[in-house]
């Protein structure tokens, strides 16, 4: 079974995050890492090929630093990496990202299963899996908290607010998984050493036959007009009880329209 896992390199949420002059996320001047939600599909893929046969290819779209997301996945145990890196991709929205991913998956070829995380932890759009399935003409089964692959079918469990659904799809299919599906492994030092020898291909838009004009900031369907830092939390108001504490508290809550 050949599995492609789409992963994203995102700014580390615990570090300082900044923006470029064109209002896009700064991906080059900040600490980045493999999106934590993407560790789950990598783990799911590794478990599937551990149980059967097959190869796990990790695919990412991003600038030079995004190679670290591939490296981490290879250290965990994935077999090879594909990095689509092209200056024209800068500022691409989810629509363009799904186009690039779809063309890359077609070029990888002979794919039985495409796995993604629930969402990227920076954009948190959660729409790329569906767009990708549409572009590839494949069934999509998303938000999987369990996944089994057997007899040419992928079966998932999707936990909703009121019910859990079991959904089947014929292979090949696109499956997005949640953080409930497994406990991602840590790389081992042996994995770190082995990853150095694993093949990573870097493709440009031209390699994929994608028109540079159809992706990037200018082609995006939405633009960020402005942004501002969330204001720091104000110090709370302290109600001193001088016998009328209850009344003051009620007045406060009433003023805030809580009661």
């Amino acid at each position, binding site marked *: 079974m050949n599995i492609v896992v789409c992963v994203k390199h995102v700014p580390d949420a615990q570090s300082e995050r900044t923006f470029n002059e064109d209002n896009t996320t700064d991906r080059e001047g900040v600490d980045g890492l493999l999106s934590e*939600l993407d560790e789950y599909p990598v783990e799911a893929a590794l478990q599937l090929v551990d149980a059967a046969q097959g190869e796990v290819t990790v695919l990412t779209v991003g600038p030079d630093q995004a190679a670290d997301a591939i*490296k981490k996945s290879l250290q965990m145990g994935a077999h090879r990496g594909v990095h689509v890196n092209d200056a024209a991709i800068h500022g691409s929205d989810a629509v363009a990202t799904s186009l690039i991913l779809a063309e890359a998956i077609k070029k990888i070829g002979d794919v039985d299963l495409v796995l993604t995380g629930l969402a990227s932890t920076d954009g948190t759009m959660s729409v790329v899996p569906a767009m990708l399935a549409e572009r590839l003409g494949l069934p999509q089964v998303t938000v999987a908290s369990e996944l089994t692959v057997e007899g040419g079918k992928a079966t998932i469990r999707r936990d909703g607010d009121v019910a859990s659904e079991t959904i089947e799809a014929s292979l090949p299919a696109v499956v997005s998984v949640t953080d409930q599906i497994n406990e991602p492994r*840590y790389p081992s030092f042996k994995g*770190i050493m082995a990853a*150095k020898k694993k093949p990573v291909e870097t493709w440009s838009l031209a390699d994929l036959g994608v028109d540079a004009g159809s992706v990037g900031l200018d082609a995006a369907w939405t633009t960020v007009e402005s942004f501002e830092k969330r204001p720091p939390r104000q110090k709370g108001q302290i109600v001193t009880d001088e016998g009328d504490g209850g009344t003051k508290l009620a007045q406060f809550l009433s003023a805030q329209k809580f009661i």
Partner: protein
Amino acid sequence: MRMRPGIVRCMAVERLVPSEEAGDLIALTREICRDVLAPRVDAAEAAGEFPRDVFGVLGRAGLLSLAYPEEFGGGGQPYEVYLQVVEEIASAWMSVAVGTSVHSLTCFPVASFGSKEQRQRLLPDMLGGEELGAYCLSEPQAGSDVSAIRTRATLTDDGGHYRLSGGKAWISHAGHADFYTTFVRTDDHPTRGLSCIVIPAGTEGMTFAPPERKMGLACDTVREVLFDGALVAADRLVGEPGMGMPIALAALDAGRLGIAAAATGLAQSALDLATSYSTDREQFGQSINRFQGLAFMLADMEAAVTSARATYLHAARLKDGGRSFSKQAAVAKLVCTDAAMKVTTDAVQVLGGYGYTQDFPAERFMREAKVTQIFEGTNQIQRLVISRQLLRG
């Protein structure tokens, strides 16, 4: 998602490492410290339970065998890298860092003095990540004076086994370990009569006393190991009979570096805590570290931590370069553990009354630092080692 604690106590010390994989290894260590060690350390140290599963995580990641050859399952890493991993672990959980150093020590005799056949037979399991070792050198009457060891190993009539009687004291991992690297007396000569033998867990006639009730390092279970006619296969005696003393001394040189690195990590953690607390804590309308009296304390703590790190790394690089490093290892052990004692004590002072409570880890750091001046050769013994080598000419 994995638990990502709000207060990240793992440090981000800038490190110069000799290779890309060493950089990735430090990153992996920090990730495991953040996700697995940091969320558990406070409760575990309060409860004093041995965290066997944590060593499983470290072992499977390859962090328990870094300094040993790859052909036997080790990481093939220089001491310069291995020790910085120990320091990172110590900054999250001192007991676990001490255990990591102890386990590394338990593999040293076979790796350095075992026959080729013994290395092939014993090392893959010892270094495989699933097993944990205990190092049995000290006895109640034989602490700094190794030649006073009394635990006796006598060859059976058929020559197939050694029969052990006696007891070992202050043994980390006792009762939890999978093997016990043990120094025994096979002859009456005080120094040339000692040998080293690797005893598997579950050996009949090997029992354990109740755990010692210690001042700190509550998760580092320490107790006596007692032998009453325990039979151990003769082919588990490392090298030749009588090599015990040189093995023990060489192992101590390497082991001291592990403790030096761990003490540095502990000191760094205390410094990080003091720095962060002194920024948040306001008196007289400003952060207390705006007062020079306190800022200078922090500066002295930073100087102590940085010089400790430089000292153990110098010793490590001498070892990695194949130079004599015995004196420098003793210097490192002395400097790093004294620094840890000073910095952790000062951290309690910076936190004031809160530092004296168990609501903050400062008092635990201070209790943990004390033993580093005592074990793996007291700091008085380190001065003996240093002065003898210095005055040898």
